[in-house]
């Protein structure tokens, strides 16, 4: 007999009907290790403000508050509180079909209720004290993580949708990273067959693809591979999902080089890298302009603003910086410049979260990032992510070395294309130099699943065959047992204060917002900020 299960509402999928019940073969994981079961339940119970639960009793669903007797060291029972009026519908004889579905920090789980006691004197009571008791489960099913959010618009945005000479007036009523929901204004009229739809707002005009419709609601998705269309789609999404963020290209004067200076990134990573008469900020800006003209990079950079002053206070970037095969890419998350102040904590969170939203469209690819493990917030974010997701995420202790070139370099003939290298477990890419202030995008590194440890000289020699005469920066990532690699015509110059490599499949990285929510909650509790 199939059992009715609850699944989290998926973000504006192709189906706008109520969430479907998952089929038996849906990929979920049963956790039976007592220690892991305990860890998950303890986390859930520890963070009531960041968790929720539903009791599924047959075809009925009730919000349920679950708690424990906090005075006892060993917890054998869970106490549940459902609305007293709902208690009469609960039949402890039928609990075999009852489920508890719970969420904590955006990760969802469920378990079957085993043995339940109801409080008989509680039906008419308005007292919201526990009225159900059930055993602590011995196994828990981990559901798919909440991958993205739906954000309803407080003030729906009027838009005009056109497709094959058909013109539809509508309101944008809900956004998510994966799709928009529109409400058609001319109700009762049959929709023409749609495929490619032009969306026009007062300020933007871009194409979306038809996903589905239901009554007056039309769901359209973006074209992630069409740079301009996707750019404007994502810009509109950001406006509602991350209101403190603006695309870098939307600023009349590029704010990122100054932010790199103000946040101390230039001093930290490139202090002695440039001659005294060269302004590193100018180089960063020029190379950004060049990178913007390289479609394969799919460069996307966001700037966070202080809503009170409207001044930029931080930035972060993602780009398809590396290629791991003919068809697969490794994206790089880099350049987190944030003016250090507790005041901009929310902006710091947003500067990470948007990248997960953006990259959710490219789940087949991987992502790599290098950071200084002394940066406690970043370090905590990724170690927590690794700890919760476990598989598909690597965090390695590495050494990032920058090289200088001994040959005379003519930078005036700089290549207008990015050079990608991928072979035998080694990945590298170059140009434009200093897109990232630490030079981390002009780098050779071992691929995620590679067993290459830097010993094979022929691989290094092969890398050097790349025609790249105008290069003047290069960095390599090695594990800590190797000081640096040797490159012909290059001299190892400095060890960059970056010592950690985070690499993951994007399918796992998109759970980042869950870890961000967790460490944000933790920071609030530590500092007694509600």
């Amino acid at each position, binding site marked *: 007999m199939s059992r009715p299960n609850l699944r989290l509402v998926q973000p504006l999928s192709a189906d706008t009907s109520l969430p479907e019940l998952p089929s038996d073969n849906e990929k979920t994981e049963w956790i039976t290790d007592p*220690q892991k079961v*305990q*860890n998950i*339940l*303890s*986390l859930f*119970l*520890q*963070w009531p403000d960041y968790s929720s639960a539903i009791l599924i009793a047959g075809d009925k669903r009730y919000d349920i508050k679950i708690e*424990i*007797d*906090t*005075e*006892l*060291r*060993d*917890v*054998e*029972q869970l106490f549940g509180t459902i609305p007293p009026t709902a208690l009469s519908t609960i039949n402890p004889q039928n609990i075999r079909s009852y489920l508890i579905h719970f969420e904590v920090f955006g990760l969802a789980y469920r378990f079957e209720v085993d043995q339940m*006691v109801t*409080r008989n004197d509680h039906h008419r009571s308005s007292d919201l*004290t*526990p*009225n159900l*008791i059930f055993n*602590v489960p011995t196994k828990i099913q981990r559901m798919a993580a909440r991958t993205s959010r739906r954000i309803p618009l407080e003030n729906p945005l009027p838009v005009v949708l056109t497709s094959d000479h058909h013109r539809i007036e509508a309101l944008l009523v809900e956004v998510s990273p994966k799709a928009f929901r529109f409400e058609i204004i001319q109700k009762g009229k049959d929709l023409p067959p749609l495929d490619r739809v032009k969306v026009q707002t007062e300020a933007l005009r871009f194409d979306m693809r038809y996903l589905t419709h239901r009554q007056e609601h039309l769901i359209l998705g973006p074209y992630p591979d069409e740079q301009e269309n996707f750019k404007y789609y994502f810009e509109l999404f950001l406006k509602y999902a991350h209101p403190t963020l603006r695309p870098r290209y939307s600023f009349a004067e590029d704010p990122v080089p100054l932010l790199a200076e103000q946040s101390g990134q230039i001093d930290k990573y490139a202090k002695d890298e440039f001659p005294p008469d060269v302004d590193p900020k100018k180089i960063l800006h020029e190379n950004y302009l060049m990178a913007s003209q390289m479609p394969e990079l799919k460069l996307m950079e966001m700037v966070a603003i202080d809503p009170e002053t409207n001044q930029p206070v931080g930035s972060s970037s993602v780009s398809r910086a590396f290629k791991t095969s003919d068809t697969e890419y490794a994206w790089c998350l880099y350049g987190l410049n944030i003016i250090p102040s507790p005041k901009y904590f929310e902006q710091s969170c947003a500067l990470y979260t948007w990248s997960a939203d953006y990259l959710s469209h490219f789940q087949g690819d991987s992502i790599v990032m290098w950071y200084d*493990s*002394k940066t*406690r917030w970043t*370090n*905590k974010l990724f*170690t*927590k992510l*690794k*700890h919760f997701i476990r598989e598909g995420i690597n*965090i390695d*202790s590495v050494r990032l070395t920058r090289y200088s070139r001994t040959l005379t370099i003519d930078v005036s003939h700089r290549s207008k294309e990015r050079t990608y290298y991928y072979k035998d477990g080694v990945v590298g890419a170059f140009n434009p130099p200093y897109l990232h202030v630490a030079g981390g995008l002009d780098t050779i590194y071992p691929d995620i699943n590679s067993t290459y440890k830097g010993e094979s000289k022929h691989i290094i020699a092969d890398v050097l065959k790349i025609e790249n005469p105008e290069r003047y920066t290069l960095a390599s990532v090695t594990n800590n047992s190797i000081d640096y690699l040797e490159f012909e015509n290059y001299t190892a110059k400095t060890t960059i204060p970056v*010592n*950690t490599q985070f690499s993951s499949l994007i399918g796992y990285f998109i759970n980042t917002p869950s870890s961000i929510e967790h460490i944000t909650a*933790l920071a609030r*509790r*530590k500092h007694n900020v509600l």
Partner: protein
Amino acid sequence: MLKNIRKPFRGFNAVLLSEKPLESQMFEERLSALFPAAEVSLDSFEEYLPAYEHCSNLKTVGLIILFAHETSTLPVNAISELTSPFEALGSQSGLWIVADSEKSFTSSYKQYSDHPGLLKISLVSDLSTDSALKSEFENILDMFSTKQVEGVLSQDEIELFDQISGKFVDISLLHRITQLITTKLDQDWLDQLTVRIGPAILGIPQAQKWILQNSPGAARIEAKVNPYLSFHPSELVERKDSHTVVRAVLLAYKIFQAHENGEGITLLQDLTKDVTPFSPTLAKVLKQTKLHILQLLRETEGRRVA
């Protein structure tokens, strides 16, 4: 069995310090997953100075978890500096060293064995499984709590109060009843001290209580216990406040007193007769331990102090 374990983390913070990238943070995540209540109390560092600033600002960092490697050079007094603000508040600090090899285990022992806060040196290879780490950290927490208790009241003082109390009551029986009722309760170090010294304090007659005034630790526990002295046993059971362990110690004493008057069994039966799964904590604990307490009362019925 789901463990609660919240109270042992009350009142102090811990710093994890390792010069090896990622090590302390990874360890913090492991501990946080095993003890979610501890997460808010843990902070990891890879450099001494930021750790020092953190400890100076917070003033509640009492436990240092230091990762020792063969190349570790952090002097003993540097560790003491981290916890000196905590000690200035009158508390005892603890040092747990996690060594990455036998060699660093030995060198850590040589280097830190004189540190007054040293709780234990563990080998990281012995902590590779979650269950091993959980068990070891529980040991460390127990040792840390014991240090706090000993910082307030020495073992000699505790034994002295037991001896004095023993002149007036069957202190051994009172301790055993108290243990039965409190053993299932989550306790912080002050609760542990209450369980340890509370029965003796209650057993000393009012006229002799001046003895306690020479011991700040005993006086502190007496002040916690006093407000509940006039409570009826059923009030102690039903009351909803956070001093469950104090009420449990008082409840044990009231049962003991009733037993002295030949009414202990009746009182116990009364207190447990209407207990349901929704009853208050102490009522359920009493019901669960009822048989053991009854057995104890029956065994000692013949040797009640007149």
